[in-house]
């Protein structure tokens, strides 16, 4: 089956003119125009370029919503299997337009899209998580190589050939980690890397250190005697039987449990389902991880005002940071809405 490809280019590559024509609104032609003709010949019999959509760079930038909607409509009418935009090299406005239309088409028409840019094009940072952006040189002098790389990736995607890592396929990473098998085992790669590092030779780390967002702590509690305090835990303490089926590790959810009628956690009412530590003593007395008993005692003594009626709990082991961030934001919002002044977080 011959696959259908639509190309997106700007007014310049469509031969309509330079900056003086950058205001032209979107239009469509039922054929390959400009670089699309070369793409057609590179795709060979694998796919046919059924149309080209053209838009002025200024028009796209200045009428983002309308331009995007109109281009998606025009592209959709060709019923394509794949969109190729650009390549935009180091042209900023063109790069943003290419990235934006690719991301919109992939998002709404649910078809893959490919564009090409130079590493410093602002479109790379904005759109690399949402589309395939093939690495190109900084100007149209690199057109031949760029179209070759784009077409090669297009053929692989259209044929459903499993793709290698971004580095091997020549596109900017989309922010996704995927497992592959290397040529050599990890131990050998490690010793090789260390010897290169010691010799002052270049080496490539396999994972750049993530940068953690630092959240400034809230102001100290001014009036503890009247403060409402909540208990939140990543120690996996849940009502017996784990009613919400929170996973023992790699949790993707947390539980909210009413403790307003409880003074003490016991093996009869609560348990630890955490997969990352020795739970023997936590199960003997779940207060050891989620100290409800002491909190009730201090509440009665008037050390603080009130213990919040619910506890929030999850298992913090192997939990993806993205999930943990979401839990924190959701729990924080709810506590704030309910007028909680402070939180005791227990972990294990």
């Amino acid at each position, binding site marked *: 089956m011959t696959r259908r490809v639509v190309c997106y280019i700007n007014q310049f590559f469509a031969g309509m003119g330079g900056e003086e024509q950058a205001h032209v609104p979107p239009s469509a032609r039922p054929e390959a125009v400009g670089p699309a003709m070369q793409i057609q010949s590179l795709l060979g019999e694998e796919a046919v370029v059924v149309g080209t959509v053209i838009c002025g760079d200024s028009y796209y930038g200045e009428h983002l919503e309308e331009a995007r909607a109109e281009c998606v409509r025009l592209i959709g009418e060709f019923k394509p299997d794949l969109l190729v935009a650009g390549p935009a090299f180091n042209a900023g406005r063109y790069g943003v337009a290419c990235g934006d239309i690719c991301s919109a088409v992939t998002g709404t028409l649910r078809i893959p899209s490919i564009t090409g840019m130079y590493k410093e094009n602002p479109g790379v940072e904005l759109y690399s998580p949402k589309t395939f952006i093939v690495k190109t040189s900084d100007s149209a002098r690199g057109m031949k190589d760029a179209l070759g790389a784009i077409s090669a990736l297009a053929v692989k995607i259209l044929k459903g050939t499993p793709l290698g*890592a971004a*580095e091997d396929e020549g596109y900017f990473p989309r922010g*996704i980690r995927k497992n592959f098998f290397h040529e050599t085992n*990890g131990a050998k790669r490690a010793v090789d890397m*260390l*010897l290169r590092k010691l010799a002052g030779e270049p080496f490539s780390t396999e994972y750049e250190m993530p940068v953690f967002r630092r959240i400034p702590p809230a102001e100290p509690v001014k009036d503890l005697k009247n403060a409402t305090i909540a208990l939140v835990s990543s120690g996996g303490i849940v009502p017996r039987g784990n009613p919400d089926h929170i996973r*023992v590790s*790699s949790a993707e959810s947390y539980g909210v449990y009413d403790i307003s009628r409880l003074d003490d956690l016991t093996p009869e009412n609560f348990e630890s389902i955490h997969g990352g*530590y020795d739970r023997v003593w936590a199960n003997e007395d779940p207060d050891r991880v989620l100290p409800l008993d002491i909190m009730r005692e201090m509440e009665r003594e008037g050390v603080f005002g009130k213990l919040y009626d619910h506890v929030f709990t999850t298992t913090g082991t*192997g939990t993806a940071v993205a999930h943990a961030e979401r839990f924190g934001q959701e729990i924080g919002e709810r506590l704030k809405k309910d007028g909680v002044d402070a939180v005791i977080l227990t972990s294990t």
Partner: protein
Amino acid sequence: MRLELHKVSVRNVSWGDETKVEKGTLFVNREEMLSVAMKDNRFARAELEFARPGESVRIIPVKDVIEPRCKLSGPGEVFPGFVGGMQTVGEGATLVLDGAAVVTCGPIVAFQEGLIDMSGPAADYSPFSQTNNVVLVVEPVEGLDQHSYEAALREAGFRLGWYLADKGRGSKADEVKVYEMGGPVEESARYPHLPKIAYLCMSITQGLLHDTFLYGADMKHLVPTLIHPNEKMDGAMVSGNCVSACDKNTTWHHLNDPIVEELYSRHGKDLVFLGVIPTLEDTRLAGKERTSWFNANLARMLGADGVVVSEEGYGNPDTDLCMNAAKCEKLGIRTVVISDEAAGTDGKSQGLADAAPEITAFVSAGNVNEMIELPAMDRILGYDSSISNLSGGAGESLRKDGSMFVELQAIIGSTNELGFSRIGARWI
């Protein structure tokens, strides 16, 4: 120190009247081996099964894997502190049943045991899909506390590993591999111009099912120390450890440590291998500080230019990993770390629970959260319903037809952080 590994190749396993290896087949006298397993009154029942490469067999939940080894000559016996007495090992000759393994299995102790598939897609990820496995499936006596159950099963594995090798003494080795190296002072003097490399073997030491033992000593009570790499090959370091299956160092991994193998093979050519620093992963901050300072200081006193740091587990130990690398680098000792990542099932999350800018050389052992489809197997050894309580599994993982959809971390050894396999996570 010189150690010869006499490797008897095992390509098949079969029941027999006498336990022995003949023409590549390990014959097992079932009754005799069972009686060795049952030399512990903490077991109510025990059964032995075989699982061979390529068979439609799933073993679950697996606690440890042990390569059969015993001493032919030299001081001590393998698995000192458990099978052998309290004497340092690593010299003389050791018999290895290469290609055979003892796999220990029983009702779930906690949440972090794993599975081995002998065929299908999971077989690409575990070294134990390629070994001829003698599987011990036990049931503990009623009311046995979890700590004792773990200890009983751990010790049974070592006992059976030694038993099988001991019965293979009569077999001629297919290969004799010699590992010979002096101590750090001697070897550094011999190769003064080569970079001096120490190996920091981080081990989980966090409590029940999260312990590692060195000469029988529970490592969570130790400070880091130094051993000769040969000692590892004789079972000085063993697993008592069922952290997430993907990145636990089984006893088999300690015996066949790929970092030791790699550094040894390049010793005197590209580098000087100074030795192994078995180190712990404490749960407390003070413990993490103490351990990481000890590690860096030990490496400095050894004269190390560089250190290979391997992690065991993920999450909490990521902090130990960062501290170890940062403190070594501060002392001018260059580091490379081997770690896996918990990047989420979609691969889009950051993969470590902690970070240090000093970690500039990172070898990825894969994303533990990546999902894998496992078809049903004809035969289940153990209890496949336990997948719902295993790390990497969930209540809905096991389908009615016996197939499973799980995270890679449920598979033993899939993202081993000694860098045993070729897997690694990369950007797409």
